């Protein structure tokens, strides 16, 4: 699910509902996350899906702030919310960082990882969303909820 191949298969006829930028600081995440949640409410997305998308967005923005930008507020994170004609929701979060290799992440449920205080964000995103793609060397995540 992480490869870029095929990740743009939905890109035609996408309606852009939100196009937001934020400084790379944790205090700015809530405003973006809440704006997306508000948009999902207006779209009449079922509440369970709202929660799942909301948490995935939270995790993607957190990763961008903490790992992509090392909490450097002079850097900027870009977040877009799109919808295709079938009503499927896409979220794209881009940071200016060096990217990462998602295939190297370990399963947080295994062994001593269970007791770790970090390392669950990407795993959660994969569980919460229906499609997840990492692009541009890992500094852009595109995730879909059907």
């Amino acid at each position, binding site marked *: 699910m992480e490869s870029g191949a095929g990740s743009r298969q939905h890109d035609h006829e996408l309606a852009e509902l939100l196009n937001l930028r934020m400084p790379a600081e944790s*205090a700015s995440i809530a405003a973006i996350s809440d704006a997306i949640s508000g948009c999902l409410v207006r779209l009449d997305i079922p509440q369970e899906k709202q*929660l799942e998308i909301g948490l995935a967005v*939270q995790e993607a923005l957190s990763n961008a702030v903490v790992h992509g930008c090392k909490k450097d507020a002079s850097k900027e994170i870009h977040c877009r919310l799109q919808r295709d004609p079938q009503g499927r929701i896409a979220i794209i979060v881009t940071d200016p960082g060096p990217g990462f290799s998602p295939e190297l992440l370990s399963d*947080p449920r295994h062994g001593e990882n269970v007791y770790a*205080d970090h390392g*669950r*964000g990407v*795993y959660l995103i994969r569980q919460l969303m229906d499609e997840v793609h990492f692009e541009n060397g890992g500094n852009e995540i595109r995730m879909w909820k059907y």
Partner: protein
Amino acid sequence: MDINVRKRSQVQLIQLRGQLRLGAAVDELRQTIAESLGNGDARIVINLSEVPMIDSSGIGLLVGFLASTKQRGGSLKLTQPSKFAVQTLRMVGVLNLFEVFDDDDAAVQSFA
């Protein structure tokens, strides 16, 4: 996030309201629990009934302080987590690390 702390029968009962996520919410809860541990209070109950969402930083905080409290002879127990919070904790494989109760009284009495 609103954080309300009460002490009942030598147990710190922490009531949260709002989303437990990266930023002020996690920072403030970390400080609250750290102060409790600093005062020698390692018996902690966190009421999650008004916490609709917990992100990975919140989960990491809970797991980390669960270990810290146990090292001090106490524990960190949860009460009334929302359906989505339970789903999230289960998803990442940490739900069964915690004792989870339907009400605060039962959680507090479990330390006796």
